[in-house]
């Protein structure tokens, strides 16, 4: 009896029950938000239909009728608006992913350089961060694009033997032409890669077990570079180069690197790297000095110290704000629409919207896309963060 009495919960009126309260608050909140969105949507649609504007996604499969100069999937004037959406989306993703990759590298270099004991290097890094971080990205993009527009025109350039031309349309280079049998070289490369990974694991285990080191650099060169090249010659050189051929206005085909893409990429990388550099610097400074001292007491070189001791610990501090920078870069890529890079906003929320006049569906989809990309990025980075987290035992 006594025990049962003890277990009985103290009675609270439902009005003061924190659980019930929380539930009611949250339900009310969801209702309000939902109603707000619903009201906004229906109001907009009825308002527009009063003016004779019908909101629908019926245009999706209609012929778009315009070309896009930078595309990674097939797109012609006869493709649909839906395909134009994918071209824009893929361009956004490509410029963002490559941008994130390069900005991370540059950001780490600058961040580490800021902490360098070399006065000149640390000052250069300091001013890089100060200047780039404090000028709006839009202005930097316009400036970069404008500078690139002043490269020589394709018509002014003479045909040369290198086959490499830097013009204000982009960089034209010889392109590989894969003939029959070229698959062999690809397989050779793949085989070399697999063999190298096997060798690397073996060498690592051996080092852990016996402390003996084995050469990796040379083996890498042999398996991944020399082996495929040898196969290339043995199989009778099935890959040849097609040199750009001058036409009246340009060179045949598209540029290897189009100027708008390069300008967008450069702008995003230079800008975001300045922020990443600060994140990296903060991360490194958070690692206690004792760690570095201990590392040098053990005889690690400065490079080994950075690579094996400091950076792995700094990573835990760096990752969350780094994720933010990745999200920023992705969203900022929409600014590239201003310099005529055909990413999602330029193609879909620009040209497609203007031709179909479907503002609500088009803008809605565009917003959803950025939301989705951002959520995926956050999710991946969180998963990575969890893996890197300190395991407390």
């Amino acid at each position, binding site marked *: 009896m006594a025990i049962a009495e003890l277990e009985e919960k103290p009675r609270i009126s439902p009005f003061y029950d924190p659980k019930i309260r929380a539930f009611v608050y949250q339900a009310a*909140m969801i209702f*309000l*938000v939902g109603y*707000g*969105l619903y*009201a*906004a*949507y229906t*109001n*907009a*649609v*009825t*308002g*527009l239909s*009063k*003016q*004779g*504007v*019908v909101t629908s996604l019926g245009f999706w499969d209609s012929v778009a*009728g*315009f*070309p*896009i*100069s930078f595309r990674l999937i097939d797109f012609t*004037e006869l493709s649909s608006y839906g395909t134009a959406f994918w071209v824009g989306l893929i361009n956004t993703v490509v410029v963002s992913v490559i941008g994130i990759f390069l900005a991370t590298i540059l950001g780490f270099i600058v961040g580490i350089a800021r902490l360098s004991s070399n006065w000149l290097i640390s000052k250069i890094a300091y001013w890089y961060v100060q200047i780039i971080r404090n000028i709006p990205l839009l202005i930097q993009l*316009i400036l970069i694009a*404008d500078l690139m*527009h*002043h490269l020589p*025109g394709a*018509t002014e350039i003479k045909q040369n033997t290198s086959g490499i031309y830097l013009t*204000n*349309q982009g960089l034209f280079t010889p392109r590989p032409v894969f003939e029959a049998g070229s698959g062999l070289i690809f397989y050779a490369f793949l085989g070399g890669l697999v063999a190298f990974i096997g060798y690397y694991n073996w060498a690592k285990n051996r080092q852990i077990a016996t402390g003996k080191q084995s050469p990796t650099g040379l083996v890498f060169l042999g398996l991944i570079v020399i082996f495929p090249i040898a196969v290339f010659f043995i199989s009778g050189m099935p890959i040849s180069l097609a040199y750009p051929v001058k*036409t*009246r*206005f*340009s060179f045949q085909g598209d540029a290897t690197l189009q*100027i*708008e893409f390069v300008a967008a990429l450069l702008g995003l990388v230079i800008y975001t790297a300045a922020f990443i550099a600060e994140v990296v610097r903060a991360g490194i400074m958070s690692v206690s000095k004792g760690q570095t001292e201990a590392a040098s007491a053990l005889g690690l070189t400065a490079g080994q110290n950075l690579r094996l001791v400091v950076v792995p610990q700094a990573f835990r501090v760096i990752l969350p704000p780094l994720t933010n920078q990745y999200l920023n870069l992705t969203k900022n890529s929409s600014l590239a*629409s*201003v*310099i*005529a890079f*055909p990413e999602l906003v*330029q193609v879909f929320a*620009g*040209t497609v*919207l*203007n*031709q*179909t*006049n*479907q*503002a609500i569906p088009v803008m809605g989809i565009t917003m959803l896309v950025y939301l989705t990309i951002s959520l995926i990025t956050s999710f991946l980075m969180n998963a990575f963060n969890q893996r890197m987290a300190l395991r407390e035992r």
Partner: protein
Amino acid sequence: MKSSLISLTVGSAITLIAGAVSAGTLDTVKSKGFLQCGSNTSLAGFGQPDPQGNWKGLDVDFCRAVASAIFNDPTKVKFTPLAAKDRFTALQSGEIDALVRNTTWTLSRDTTLGAFFGAVNYYDGQGFLVRKSMNIKSALELNGATVCVQQGTTTELNLTDYFRANKITYKPVVFAGSDETLKAYDSGRCDAYTTDASGLYAERLKLTKPEDNAVLPEIISKEPLGPAVRQGDDQWANIIRWTHYAMVTAEEQGVTTANVDEMLKSTNPDIKRLLGTEGKFGEGLGLKNDWAYQIIKNVGNYGESFERNVGAGSQLKIARGQNGLWSKGGLQYAPPIR
């Protein structure tokens, strides 16, 4: 609570953006005390502020004419400079009362954009501008060329049609703003720049070396440019289109800013009806009977406005051509005021 506040704000913002404008536009304009006109950001001859900040141009004159008809005062108008791609949103949302910005009348703009076009104040067509050094004599030689074009325009659409129809290709470089578009062409990024022929004449003046550029002979489209209003307000639509017709009628009848006071004494019934000395035509529009007198007195007739802004009296020196009166071989024709 913060986020529900946000959602309410967003909700009401969208409501504002897309909310139908229920009161008649004329009443709204009268109670505001001025006309809000959607204009070019900067296009010589059509709509552009001069160095003193006064708006000048054919389309600007049109807005001033509407303001004169309503308020007897051509200065009671405010201009909202709009990029091509933003203009219809501004019209739909009620941000502007009329869109007078070298805008082409097309079927889909009448139907899917909720715009209503009533009159054509400039008959135009699309052309190409190229560098003389390229030695191009015809647009058909542009196969493989890079073309700079402004987004959200009929220009963008015609360009595709023209190349497709002629089985030639081009590489588009598409900008949202007109200045970026022109600058990219000027710096050499594009081999050709395309827009309405009137725009070519105007924009050419902004190039570093205007004389090094030439307009190609082909006109690849029909661009009837005119004022647009929202669908569903017939009274307002009438005022807009009859403002243009009053200006054309005045030119037909030889009524000008200089002689309009004298013309009040005219015995010609057409002129009497135009100037409101006979009949009650202005009242039918919801205006005063001297509405057209005010337009002519303050702004002038169509020919005067044309010559001053884009014709012989301007930098552009565009010939009347298609924009001449129908009686002189042009297309400008006003239905009778009666």
